[in-house]
Structures are given as C-alpha cells and as structure tokens.
C-alpha cells in the first residue's frame, strides 16, 4: 500500500530584500576597517598602478595608504590650510592637490616637498586633475574660474570664467586629451575643450552640483547635486537621460565600478546606493555610520573606501573564496562510480528490470514511523539546532498525533535543558511562536512539581519568563503604534467611506419597495 509519508517541513518565505546576483556580489566584502583621520575626508583616489595605493585627502594632509595597511605609508602635510582633491596621474607617479589658500601643488609620490606650485587662483581650489595627455593639469576654484596649467613650466594656459558660483567638482575625459567637465554651485555643468575659448556644452542640473562623472565611453555624463543624480546624454547635446532620486539628503560623491555596469552614489544621508547603468534601478545599498563625503572603488572592485564627515575612513575588502578550495578534500569515489551504467541504452531484446527507488527517510522520520516520539524529538533537538523549522515541524507532527505531552515528559536535567535552550532561543520568533508557546505551556505544566530541584533548569525558566515579558511589552507598544496609524488612515480615507455609506442606504431602501411590488 501507500508508503510512509515523511513529515512536511514548512518553508517560510524569506523576508526582506530578495537575493539577486547583485546582493550576493556586494555582500561579499569583509567587515570594514575603520581608520580615523584628522578631519572630514573630502577625497579618496586610487592609484591606477598596482599595488593600488590610495590617497586620502582630509583636513590639511594627504595620506597614502597601502591596500591592507591601517597606517598611512606616506603623508604630505605641507599645507597651511585644508588640502583638497589629491588625485593621481595615470602613471601613478605624480599627485596633484588643490588647497584652501588657492595654490595647486604637484607632488612626486616618492618625494616629500611639492615639485611645482601653480599660483593663479584667488580662492580655495577644490578641484584639480590631470588631463589625459599627462602634461597638463586642470583646476577649478571658488573664484568661479577653471584653469589649465602646463606642468613643466607651471604656467596657466587657459582660464575659463563662465561659471557664476563656486566650482566644486570636475572630471576629465579619458578618451579626449582636451575635454574636461566642471560642475558648479550655479546649478550648471559645463563641458570644456582646451582648444576652444569657450565651453562647448552646458547642462542645467537644477541644484548646486556636488559631483560630476564621465562614463569611460565619454557618451554619458553623470551629475550629482541636491538629492538628485542625473544622467545626461552628451552625444545628443546634453539631453537628460534619467533623473534618480533615491537619497533623502544631498548626494556628495559618484563613482563607477570597474566594469562600468554599476554606478555608486554616496550621500549625506549615510547611504551608498548602487545603480545598474542599464536600468538605473537601485540594486543594492550600503549603510554607514556618518554622512558620506567621498567614495572610491579599487580596480576590480577589490576595495570600497568611504570617507565621512566625522573623519572616519571606512575600508572594505573583498572576500576571496579561493582559500576554501585549497583545503584537502576528503577522498570520495570518483564521479563515474555513481553514473556507471546510467547512460546505457537498453537494446530491443533486453529485458528492462526497473530497480525500485529506495526512499531514504530522515532519522526522525524513521523514529516517528515506529511511533518512538520521545526519541524523535531528541534527535531533532540535538542535530538540527541550525534548522529550527525541522524541530518545530516534528513538534507539530507530534501535536497532530496527540503525543506531544508524552514526548516532552519524562526528561532528565540534561535533556530538558536542551529543550529549554531551544525554547529560549526561538520562542519569540513569529514563525515558530504559536507552536513553541504551546510547548512552553506544556513543559511548565509537566515540570511544575519538580521546579527548584535543579539550578540549571530554574535559571532557564527565569530566562524564558524574562524573554516572554519583554516580548509582551513589545507587542503592547506595537499595538499602540498600530492604533495611531489606524487613526491617521481613517482621517485620510474618510471621504471615500461616506460615498460607500450612501450606496448602502440606497440598496436597503430600494429592496423593500420592490418587495411590495412583488
């Protein structure tokens, strides 16, 4: 006849975010390393050359950190006031930085003193970068100007003063040696070509622009300002492609991942959001302790470094799974032993004798099949502490059979304490609460006469009581909140409710009339 049906273990839906490729990818970072800087971290830049050191600009210093170092391996501290925007050149040998006093300095990463100094700006220089031909530097300052400098001669080549407010961000095109972009607090982003006297394109962001970014292809321009991140199509003459509003405070920094498939934005609301550059949907987000000012990703996304207003530098390194595979594997039969004969196609004259499929029952199922309820409960309590749903499913099966009390009774101290530990751990979990509350009640009923004989059990009982009391308090509080929300919703939907009332009265009034007619 029908064979034994094993216990059905309920599967519960995973609450919270769904697991996608992205969440898996972005979650595979180790616990962050926190490094305290002297002031707010305004800029982080990775060296394009291995071993990918990174320069961190904070207060009046520029620190250079190695990949796994917690201490700076080099420090540039020849600034009288705050330094800004320390950026590597493509070859990783030179570093340029603006400063509060309006001077742009060029450093050799081996040396200590500045190689060159570029004077000309009258206000603090917040932006400085190398053009992609490596021989020119562009800088932009709070005096509304942006300038191009020749590195060897330290002379200004061009100066543009089209912005009408502070210029606080900029970037260069990797493809074209002459093109660079600046963003300003006058709500505009301008694209300049060093060969022209004037800007070649202007887009209106709508808020003071805090950060701009050109895609590696140069076709798309991303600007961040206010709560918005906007993507512009440069090739279509600066047409707005998409406007993202996923932060609830000013977005301060932008960054692309190494493949260019994901866009990261950091904001004062302490979040880093990751967007897909195909759908422009948020695929993941990180949470930080303080407002974020700067953000950088190492090549191959090996490291995420985030700088915050409280001067903390947060460094996350990627986990590597390779170490696990290197572990010596247990010797197992070769794969072919298992598939031996599986692929054999029966010939026409062969008699096919089908082998009955052996169903393997779990240990608790075997015990339940032979009605050994106490043992079955013991088995699931010991072995499956990691899978409480199996334990609860067996308990449910026992209630269904009406033998849960028998299974719970007659335990010694050690067995009971395992059971109590399970209860203490899971009794407040909503998935298991209905079942476990009943189990707890039964245990109290059964073991009430022997309370006081064992200190271990007494302690566990007290702990259970404490947990349950705490949970009751929580629930009461939640009910209050729910009541408040109900009141709010009621005021919002009053209008609709009245219309329903009218309808109803109509129906009631009408039907008796019709009755009379009939």
């Amino acid at each position, binding site marked *: *006849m*029908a*064979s*034994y*049906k*094993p*216990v*059905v273990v*309920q599967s519960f839906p995973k609450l919270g975010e*769904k697991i*996608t*490729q992205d969440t898996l990818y972005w979650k595979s970072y180790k616990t962050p390393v926190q490094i305290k800087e002297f002031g707010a971290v305004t800029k982080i830049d990775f060296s394009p050359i291995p071993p990918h050191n990174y320069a961190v600009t904070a207060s009046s210093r520029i620190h250079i950190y190695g990949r796994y170092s917690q201490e700076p391996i080099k420090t540039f501290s020849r600034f009288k006031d705050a330094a800004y925007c320390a950026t590597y050149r493509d070859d990783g040998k030179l570093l340029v930085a603006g400063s509060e006093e309006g001077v742009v300095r060029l450093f050799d990463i081996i040396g200590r003193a500045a190689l060159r100094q570029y004077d000309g700006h009258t206000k603090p220089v917040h932006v400085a970068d190398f053009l992609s031909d490596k021989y020119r530097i562009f800088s932009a300052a709070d005096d509304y100007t942006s300038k191009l400098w020749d590195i060897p001669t330290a002379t200004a080549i061009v100066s543009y003063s089209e912005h009408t407010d502070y210029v606080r961000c900029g970037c260069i095109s990797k493809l074209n040696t002459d093109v660079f972009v600046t963003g300003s607090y006058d709500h505009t982003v301008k694209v300049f070509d060093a060969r022209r006297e004037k800007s070649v394109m202007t887009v209106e962001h709508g808020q003071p622009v805090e950060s701009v970014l050109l895609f590696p292809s140069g076709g798309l321009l991303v600007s961040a300002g206010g709560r918005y991140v906007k993507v512009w199509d440069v090739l279509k003459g600066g047409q707005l492609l998409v406007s993202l509003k996923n932060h609830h405070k000013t977005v301060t920094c932008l960054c692309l991942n190494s493949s260019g498939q994901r866009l990261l934005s950091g904001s004062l609301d302490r979040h880093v959001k990751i967007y897909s550059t195909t759908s422009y949907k948020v695929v993941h987000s990180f949470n930080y302790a303080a407002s974020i000012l700067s953000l950088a990703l190492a090549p191959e996304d090996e490291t995420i470094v985030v700088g915050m207003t409280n001067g903390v530098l947060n460094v996350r390194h990627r986990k590597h799974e390779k170490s696990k595979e290197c572990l010596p594997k247990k010797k197992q039969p070769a794969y072919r032993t298992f598939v031996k004969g599986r692929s054999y196609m029966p010939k026409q004259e062969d008699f096919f004798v089908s082998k009955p499929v052996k169903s393997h029952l779990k240990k608790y199922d075997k015990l*339940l*099949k032979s009605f050994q309820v106490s043992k079955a409960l013991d088995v699931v309590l010991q072995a499956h502490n990691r899978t409480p749903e199996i334990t609860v499913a067996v308990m449910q*099966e026992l*209630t*269904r*059979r*009406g033998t849960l009390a028998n299974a719970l009774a007659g335990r010694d101290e050690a067995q009971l304490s395992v059971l109590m530990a399970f209860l203490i751990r899971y009794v407040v979990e909503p998935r298991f609460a*209905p079942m476990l509350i*009943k189990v707890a009640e039964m245990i109290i009923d059964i073991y009430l006469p022997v309370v006081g004989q064992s200190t271990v059990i007494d302690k566990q009982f007290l702990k259970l009581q404490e947990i349950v009391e705490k949970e009751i308090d929580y629930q009461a509080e939640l009910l209050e909140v729910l009541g408040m929300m109900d009141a709010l919703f009621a005021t919002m939907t009053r209008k609709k409710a009245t219309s*329903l009332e009218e*309808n*109803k009265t*109509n*129906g*009631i009034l*009408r*039907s008796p009339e*019709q*009755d009379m007619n*009939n």
Partner: protein
Amino acid sequence: MVAHQPLRVVRCGGSKLSGARAAFSADAKYLLCTSGDYVKVYSTATEECVHILQGHTNLVTGIQLNPQNHMQLYSCSLDGTIKLWDFTDGILIKTFVVGYKLFALYMLADSEGSVFIIIPKKNEDASDSFQLVSVKLPKTPDQEVEAKDLSLILDDIGRSPKCTAFGREGEYVASVRGLHLLVHFFKKKKTNRFPLSGTSRKGANNYFTCVACHPKEDCIASGHKDGKIRLWRNFNHKREYTFSTLHWHHDVVMDVAFSVEGNSLLSGGVESVLVQWRDGSDCKKEFLPRLGSTIEHISVSPDGTFYCTSHTDNKITIVHSNLRVSAVIQGLVKGSDVKTGLVVDPRTKALVLNGKPGHLQFYCLQTDKQLYNLDIVQQEYIHQVGLHQTELVKAAFNTQGSWLATVEQREDKEIELELQMKLWNYDEQTQSFTLNTRINMPHEAHITALCFRDTDELEDATPTLVTAGKDGRFKVWMLVNDSAEKPSMSWSCGFVGSYHNYPANSCCFSEDGSLLAVSFEETVTVWDSDTWDLKCTFCHPPGKIRNLCFGRLSCSKYLLGTTDNGFLCCWNLLSCALEWSTQLNVIVLQPDPLSENIAAVSQLLDHSDLFVFKPNEPRPFCIQRNVCRERVQWAVFIPRDVPESVGSEKHQWLNRSQLYMLTETQDLLTFSTKSPEERLTPSSKQLAVEESLPVTPFYLLLGKHRRQQQSKENAELGTAVIQSQLPQDSPEIKELLHTPAHVLPSASFLCSIFINSLLISKENKSSGDVVDEVEMDSEKAEDESDEDVELSEMEQDTNPTEFLGEIAPKLSKAQEKELRKIRRMDYSWVAAL
C-alpha cells in the same frame, strides 16, 4: 412527443461494499460481496465487476457459498428471504421465504439442507435480542419456497454476523455478546458460558467484538474492545478452560479470521493494519500497514491464496497470502463527511469530492469508477479514534481545469486553527496536478468560499482566485512572476477587501469575470474585478445570505441569493433593484454552466424538493417534490458528453447536463427519465472481462486471429468465404494448450504439427489471387526456428486467417514449402482494399 415519462431519482455509485463479509469462489477467481440490495461478483484478477445479482428487496446481510455445489451462492437479506444463485451466470435459482428479518447466514458442509440464520426474537424493528436458529430448506423444484421449519439453537446473542462462528466440522458454535462467550455443542446439546470481568485495574475493556473458530483444532479466537485477542482452548470443560492473550491492536479489534489450514490468525481494526499471527504466538506476527481505513471484515479464500479485507471507506482489498496487496476494489469513497462539496473537473468531467482522508477523489460517473486519488494534505494519516486530523475542506477548479485550489484545516480545542491553501497546476507531461504554491493561514478564520474567475482561453488574463473568510475579509490571489531571473510563477495576494468587518459567507464571479459578488452576513456587495472598487450593495433583511450565484448567458444581468430565513431573491444588476423574491428555504443553489437554468433544492420538514427555474422568470418550470428523505447537502450540474434527447418538454433541462445530488447519508442521486428496465439492460460486461484479462503469448497469437476474423467477417460479409471453425478448435492446438507442460514431448517435435494446423489449405489459397512474387530465401526459412514463423504471423497484420480453420492437417512437403512462402509475403494490399 413520446409518452410522458416521469422523472425518477436514481442512486448512483452503488452502496457500501463493506456491509458484510465478502466471499471468495472456490477457485478464488471471483470475489462476491454484498452491496446494498445487490450481491456483486468481482473478478479477483482484473478488479472488474462481472455480475450484479439483483433480486433482494432489502439490504443483503450475508452470503455463503453452497458447500454442496461451489458454483452456487446463498444470500440472506433483511427482506426475510434466502436466495440461491448461480453466480457465474448471474441467475437466481431459488428463493426461500423465511418471513423474519435475517441478519446473518451460516452453512455447514455436512448439514445438508439446513442453514443457520440469526433472526430477531420478536420479529420487530425495536427488538434488540436475537437468536440463532437453523432452517430446513425444503427440496422442492419450485422457484419460490416457504421455509418455516425453524429450530432454536442459541438465544440472546449478538446481532452482528461477526459475533457467531461455527467450529471444526460443525461440532460446536461459538457466539459472543457483551462480556460472555457462549459455546454450544451440537452432539452433547450442551451450552457452556464463559464470562469475563467487565473492567480491571489496568483499564482493560473486555467486551467481545468478534469471534472466529479454528478450522482444524478446538480453538476459538475472540476480539475485544481494548484491542486484545484471546485464544480459547479446552472450552468443553466448564471450569478448566484456558485462554492465551495476544495484544497488538491499540483499539477495537474489528474482525478476526483463521487461515484455511488454521496455522495463522488474521486480525484487523481501526489502525487499518492487517496483522497475521503465526501459530497463535505473540512474537511471530507480520503486518500489512497503511491499508487506508478501518478494516471491517476479513475473509479468506477457500484455496488459501487470498485474503480480503473490507474497509469502512467502501473498499475491498484483496491480499495475497504472503501479505502483498494484489487488487483493490474501490467504490465511491464514503468514509468521511464531504466538506468540499461536489466539484466537476473540467478536464475529465469527473466528479471531484473528498476521498480518503486528506485526498481528493476523482470519480468517473460514466463508468461508476474511481479514477484516482490526489493526495492534498501529504501527511501521514494516523488511524486513531479521537485525533484531530487535517481535513480537506474546500476545492475549486478554474474553467480550463489547469488550476486547482484546495483548502485544508485542522481544528483543535487546545490549539488555534491551522489553515493552509494549496494551488495545484496541471502538468501535461505527467498528467497530474503538481503543487505550485502553498499559503499558510490565508485567512485568520475559516474560509467559507473559494472561486476562480472564469476566463476564456483566448483571453490572456492573469488567473485570479478569490477566497472569503469568516475573519471579515475576502482576498484576491493572483498568479504572478515572483523572481526576475527565473520564469517561475506563483500565487500571491493582490487585494484584500472587507465590508464593515462582517464575516464573508460566500463569493461568486459573474460569467464573464467582470463582477465579483461577496456576501457579508446580510449584505451582498458587488465589486469590479478590474479595479476592485465596490460597485453596489444589496440587502434583504433580515437574514444571512447562504448562497449566491450569477445568472448565465441571457440572464447574466441577474444575481441570485438565498437567505437562511427562507428567501430566494433575484436582483437586477442593471437597475440595482430587487427583481423578485420568494419564500423558499433553499439549501442548495446551483447554476447550470451550459444554460440559464438554476436548480434550487429546498428543505421542508422531512423531505427535499427540487425547483428548476430561469432567473428572468420567477416561476419554476420544473418542480420535483420529495426527491429524497434526507437533507441534500450538495448538488452539481455535470455537462453530458453527448446531448441526450429527453422526450418530455418538461425535462428539457436535462438535455445537456445532468444534475447530481449528494445527501447527508452520502448517497449520490441523479435523475433519469428512462424506465428501470431500460437502465438495467444487461451490458456486455462478460466480454469486457475477457478482453481485460492479462495478455499471454498464446493469447497474442490466437486472440489476434480471432479479432482479425471478426473484422474480416464484417468487411467481407457479402463474399462467400465463411469461417467455420476457430483455430483453437483444431485437435493439435487443443492438445498443445490443454496438456500439462511436463508430459508434453519436446517443443521442436510439437511445433511442426502446430504450425501445420495453422496453415492454409491449397484450395482456399487460390481464391486469394496470389501474386507471382516469391521470396528467395525460402530455403533459409525452413532452417529458422518455428517460433520465428509464429512471430512473423503476429507481425503481419493482414494474414488471410479466415482460411485457417479449414486446413487439412496433412500436406505434402512441397505444399508446405509453398505455403510458407505465401505466408511470408506482404499482404498489406488486402488491407488497402
């Protein structure tokens, strides 16, 4: 118009098969069992019903093979007659009128011409004391004989046939009642009474439930209420009797039986485990577990090859003596309360309702056979009295039959309600339903109604399901794609509606699926199924809405509702007004899916009436009073495969679909306009059995010939070729088939004769217009083994077998060769003709 025939109520699905112990025929080829007023003869090999012995006018209570002639069967019934049947042909031979209600029938091998019966003491309904009497059956050639020669044997015994058993060679009879075992010895005319104490300290319950006697020794086995089995010995002494106890059952022992040789004892009970005790010892026992439901009766075939157990859920299991189930005869499962109601599977047109515990049964009404059971709950069923099991309470199909929704619940006083809704998808490949979504606690309280939105196949709407619950909400469930990567579909809640937190009683979609009606207590709410906005409400105070349904086809603008204070109301959806209402205590309201007709079954005092009407016409066009005495629980219209032409205009509504009703006593009723004679036309059951016999290689060979002959005969009816003799009639074949294999000469010797007998004679062959083409490998053909020749015969579909019989057995060698050549030729051109 044909003569007006009255509409008759017909019971279908048959009665319980487990009314009395079943009996095997002497060769164990047939199983005979009682079924209501009939005795049914089943084939043990094919599980098919071969004959139905009809004649009794009341419940048949016992059947026994005639010990003198094992092709005959005695049956006794509550109508006071004993009938003698020839069960192989299904003929009633004799009727003996006793004149008392007969509750059991026993026969002994040596007591010729007399039978033992159990009759009530005073021949009244109310009488609760019974006696065992022997009746002399008079030997007269008449068809109907009065048998009044009764002699009392035992007084004040149990009514159940299980409580009395006859011992070795009819020397004694044992009977149990309450706490007493009575043993009466025929020769000594002595009765011994063995009492047991009522209760003991250990809480034993010693009441007897059944008794059986050892066929060879002086040993009586008795079953008890607390699950014990006692083996009594030495009972011819009043004082020095002994008994040993076997205890495995934890609940009542329903029946015990000894095997034919008496070396093993079988017992069964509520646990639905057949226990075989070897040599009457406690340690040597074997089990056949999970038989499905409580074992009521156990019987053993006379040749000892089979056991059979009758179960409470209308099932008979035939078990091999090595405790392997060999066949299951399953009627409409009538075990539990039908909570799902009657549902029609749109795919197979089968009736779907609660089956085995936790299962849905699919029952084919055309063949009166169970198709299959679908396991819904998927939990191990513990056979124990008083357990709160998970019950299947609701089931619904969508219009195409591709989705099935089921609701199961478990209710216990101590623990809160457990609800689970499951959605099953029909898998075309495996031809069965597979679980798609499981929803825990879809509602906070009981689910009262469940319905799918009807959609056309062409329309690409998302499948939608609505559930209404006592928690005052109705929920709309929709099929959605739940993950972006994989194309996996699952159901999730799309909308929750409520109306002043009144409990929702029922819900119903309109025919086109655009409107949803949900009733909350006394109010009917109508919702737009696109936006889920409340459109309007209807009310007919005071009275809770019981049923709700929309009109169909031309009447789709009407909404019908019944209230529990006895009103049937019809609202017009266009004017939002009550169209008409009438005072009628409607229990069941069921629309016909193929027409505008709506059937309403009302309950008045002690009988149910049926009304069939159209919503646009408040006057019913068919009223059928007194459909049945019991309360009708459920009803359903089942579309007919072929529209039936019903003569009477009054019964036109039965043309396209048939109405089935299920009563409280779980009888399935339907209507028929045919007279009883028409319905009971003997079918070609005998043929069906023959065809469904297992196929043997010889059958393949010979059966094929026979079928070909038949088809040929049909095709060439006009030609002069006449089949005179069947091939198996030839002496050679007879010899081959009927001689035991171990005395036959070697096969190679026989084969030539055998093959010769199959060959065609020369004269006939010439008429076949043979083509000149001759195969070249005729020499080789001779060398081939003769089996190959046989094989080739089977392969050639169009052998001219009509000539087979007329072969002259002796042919010259040359002729034989010639013939073989012809046989190997392709005759497919014959078929082309």
